[in-house]
């Protein structure tokens, strides 16, 4: 058997974005030993890309805000498929987590009184996003990183986990490899926290980087954990569309929060054409009112550009499909127009949206203070993921915890912007705390060497195959095309069935992939190792999408365009069957207690 290095920690955290670092900090604070394994260098995880802000009802800008309003907004945005308990905890604890981040050194933009400034965002009734210009994610990850490195945790940068290890039905560690030398590592742990983020790389057009191959989802699935809500993939309405090489890169919702408007090629503000009933009361019916809202007028209602992401993305798709799109297959997002309203508009835009200004100037040669951007939907986030207990974040497999994007429940059928960063802080901390507690009850023990041998064999097999095997990149690209075209923003039964078939064929081909070169920092090998995760999450998305025969939130089916009341009460559960095939089951969403139902009623 190949050699490997062994390590032991009370708590092992896999992933070092906002959720992973929050978990590691909290577990370290509890006094247990903590190891953190991450695929990239520390501080480079996708949290860095988050732009808009952290949603928390601090009520510094509008004192009508409270956890109750935030809770109701989150549930409405998720079309009531959310885990109500997670939505409740999230809304109650987010303000404290933001203040904690400030105590760690984060510097948010301020109000005139010197308090944390909050901005408007889609689906949030009041200005609620604590932010730093449009680089809030960078501020958050750097703050957690700079705080975390002094807490005693050991970080394994550029290491990838291939498999979770189980003994007597519980998770006892993980096994993987390091990129630099290609050597194998065993991490034994009393508890494991998955914080691996999303699955964006399963799609061709995405705001996600190479890392987001659904590793945590797949690791948990293979370990026997339930995945829920996998049909709900968020397509962010505004990604860059031109030039081709930047297609998919995110354009923050903050642009619309600051007054940016969406227009088709006829310069029509098409978002006024379709306002869902659920939001009619809260949405402006004329441009003037919408503008006043973005400038902080408390009497005004929000412009339709700030409706939920699923809806805005579909309206944009409608304009494009009906031939009213922009020259490169998007629509126009215009912030330059505010010069009609503000004397120092160009300076204001550069100050409020510095990264967007920079991004368009450098990558597209467009000055957003002078001309409109071209934007279109991009795969951004997966609401579905590992089913967890709301309070402890433990999955359905003992000893295995999950937090952040790879966990599921908080966002239901659609996530509100800004609720992701707060999710990472609130549930990262909870996962870290309860993992630390559990690690004291179940200390580290030996692993099954037979299990390790099998993982090593599979990992090395691509080097030993005959020369006619194909490379991993081609399979990855074909999978991305398949998911983009057949399980994208607008879905149909036959297309999704076709996708499941294609995924199975690709899986056959993946089992014959060949890797050239050796194990030292070999991206061909890394891509091959990620294929299983990508294929697993893709199949879960497609199968759950087939099962949900209605349109709700981010899941839109052209063949069932309406909501189905019965379907609104069930969650799709995906798990690995005893015969290793993917099983899917519908389960009732737990009923909400009366007092929370009352809150939702009051907030309508």
């Amino acid at each position: 058997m190949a050699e490997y290095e062994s390590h032991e920690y009370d708590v092992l955290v896999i992933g070092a974005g906002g959720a992973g670092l929050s978990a590691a900090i909290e577990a370290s604070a509890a006094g247990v030993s903590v190891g953190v394994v991450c695929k990239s260098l520390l501080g480079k995880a996708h949290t860095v890309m988050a732009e808009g802000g952290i949603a928390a009802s601090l009520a510094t800008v509008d004192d009508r805000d409270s956890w109750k309003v935030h809770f109701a907004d989150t549930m409405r945005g998720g079309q009531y498929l959310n885990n109500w308990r997670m939505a409740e905890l999230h809304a109650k604890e987010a303000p404290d987590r933001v203040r904690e981040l400030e105590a760690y050194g984060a510097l948010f933009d301020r109000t005139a009184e010197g308090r944390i400034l909050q901005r408007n965002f889609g689906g949030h009734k009041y200005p609620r996003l604590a932010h730093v210009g449009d680089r809030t994610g960078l501020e958050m990850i750097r703050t957690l990183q700079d705080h975390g490195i002094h807490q005693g945790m050991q970080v394994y940068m550029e290491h990838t986990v291939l498999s979770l290890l189980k003994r007597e039905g519980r998770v006892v560690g993980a096994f993987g490899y390091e990129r630099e030398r290609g050597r194998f590592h065993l991490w034994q742990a009393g508890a494991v926290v998955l914080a691996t983020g999303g699955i964006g790389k399963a799609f061709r057009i995405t705001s996600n980087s190479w890392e987001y191959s659904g590793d945590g989802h797949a690791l948990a699935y293979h370990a026997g954990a339930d995945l829920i809500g996998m049909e709900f993939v968020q397509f962010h309405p505004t990604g860059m569309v031109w030039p081709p090489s930047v297609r998919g890169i995110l354009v923050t919702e903050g642009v619309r929060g600051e007054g940016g408007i969406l227009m088709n090629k006829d310069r029509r503000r098409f978002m006024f054409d379709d306002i869902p009933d659920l939001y009619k009361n809260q949405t402006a019916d004329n441009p003037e009112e919408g503008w006043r809202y973005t400038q902080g007028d408390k009497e005004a209602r929000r412009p339709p550009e700030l409706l939920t992401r699923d809806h805005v993305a579909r309206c944009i798709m409608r304009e494009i499909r009906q031939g009213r799109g922009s020259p490169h297959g998007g629509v126009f997002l215009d912030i330059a127009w505010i010069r009609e309203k503000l004397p120092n508009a160009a300076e204001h835009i550069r100050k409020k949206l510095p990264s967007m200004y920079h991004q368009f100037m450098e990558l597209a040669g467009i000055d957003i203070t002078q001309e409109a951007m071209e934007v279109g939907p991009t795969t951004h986030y997966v609401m579905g993921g590992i089913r967890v207990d709301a309070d402890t974040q433990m999955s359905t497999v003992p000893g295995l915890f999950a937090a952040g994007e790879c966990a599921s429940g908080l966002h239901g059928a659609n996530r509100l912007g800004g609720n992701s960063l707060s999710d990472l802080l609130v549930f990262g901390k909870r996962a870290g705390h309860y993992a630390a507690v559990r690690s004291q009850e179940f200390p580290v023990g030996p692993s099954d060497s037979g299990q390790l041998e099998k993982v090593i064999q599979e990992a090395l097999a691509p080097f030993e195959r005959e020369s006619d095997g194909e490379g991993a990149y081609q399979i990855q690209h074909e999978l991305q095309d398949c998911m983009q075209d057949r399980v994208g923003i607008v879905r149909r039964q036959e297309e999704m069935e076709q996708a499941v078939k294609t995924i199975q064929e690709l899986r056959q081909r993946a089992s014959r992939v060949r890797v050239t070169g050796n194990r030292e920092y070999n991206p061909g090998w890394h891509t091959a190792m990620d294929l299983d995760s990508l294929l697993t999450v893709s199949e879960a998305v497609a199968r759950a999408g087939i099962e949900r025969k209605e349109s709700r939130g981010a899941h839109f089916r052209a063949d069932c365009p309406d909501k189905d009341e019965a379907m609104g009460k069930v969650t799709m559960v995906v798990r690995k069957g005893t015969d290793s095939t993917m099983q899917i089951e519908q389960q009732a969403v737990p009923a909400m207690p009366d007092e929370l139902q009352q809150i939702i009623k009051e907030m309508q």
Partner: protein
Amino acid sequence: MSTATFRIWRGKGQEGRFEDYSTEYSEGMVVLDAVHKVQAEQAPDLAVRWNCKAGKCGSCSAEVNGKPKLMCMTRLSDLPLNEPVTVEPMKAFPPIKDLVTDVSWNYRVKQRIRKFAPRKPDFEDGTWRIDQQDVERVQEFRKCIECYLCQDVCHVLRDHRLHSQFVGPRFFVYAAALDMHPLDTEDRLPDLQQRDGIGFCNITKCCTKVCPENITITDNAIIPLKERVVDRFYDPLGRLLGFFRRK
């Protein structure tokens, strides 16, 4: 589509050579796209670090035609494509493979710098009041994406290899961000003067020129820190006054 040649460093550790790869390019492509294309079509084991592809994570630092750059923000249309485009790893750090270098020294240096130590909260609910003006002064430094291009270009590290006595521009920016943080109470000046070697910087401003975030590293971070160090440790009058003030 037209074709361009990329002269990419292929090597392990100190050993290696340039290899030429011809590949097609299209409008708007950046150097990182070309490297990925070569990787997918011709050299599957070509090692390169990258993440966000939008200039926000600072992973894909390299030297393009001899200049320290983020590959994801370097557009082909800004380069002369009638001759080969050279792409090689940063020089201030030990090479690992191809375009990937060992930047772990930076992480060790950061760990040594005294951490943020806030003053007591202004209110019982644990919050502070801070002026936007005070926030803005520091926000420039907090834009840093830790690409380490400033470290790469700094002659104290690149040519003189004084890694053991000098922390480099990135960590002067980091120290400045902490020092000028409106809530911070820690004193980092003795470390900066002695252990971190701020005196080695002779303000040639190379770091400022390569910063992809346009942080005014030398003028806004390093010079003010140098001034504080000088005031504290080298100004006899100031020391005398300080002596009386402490009384």
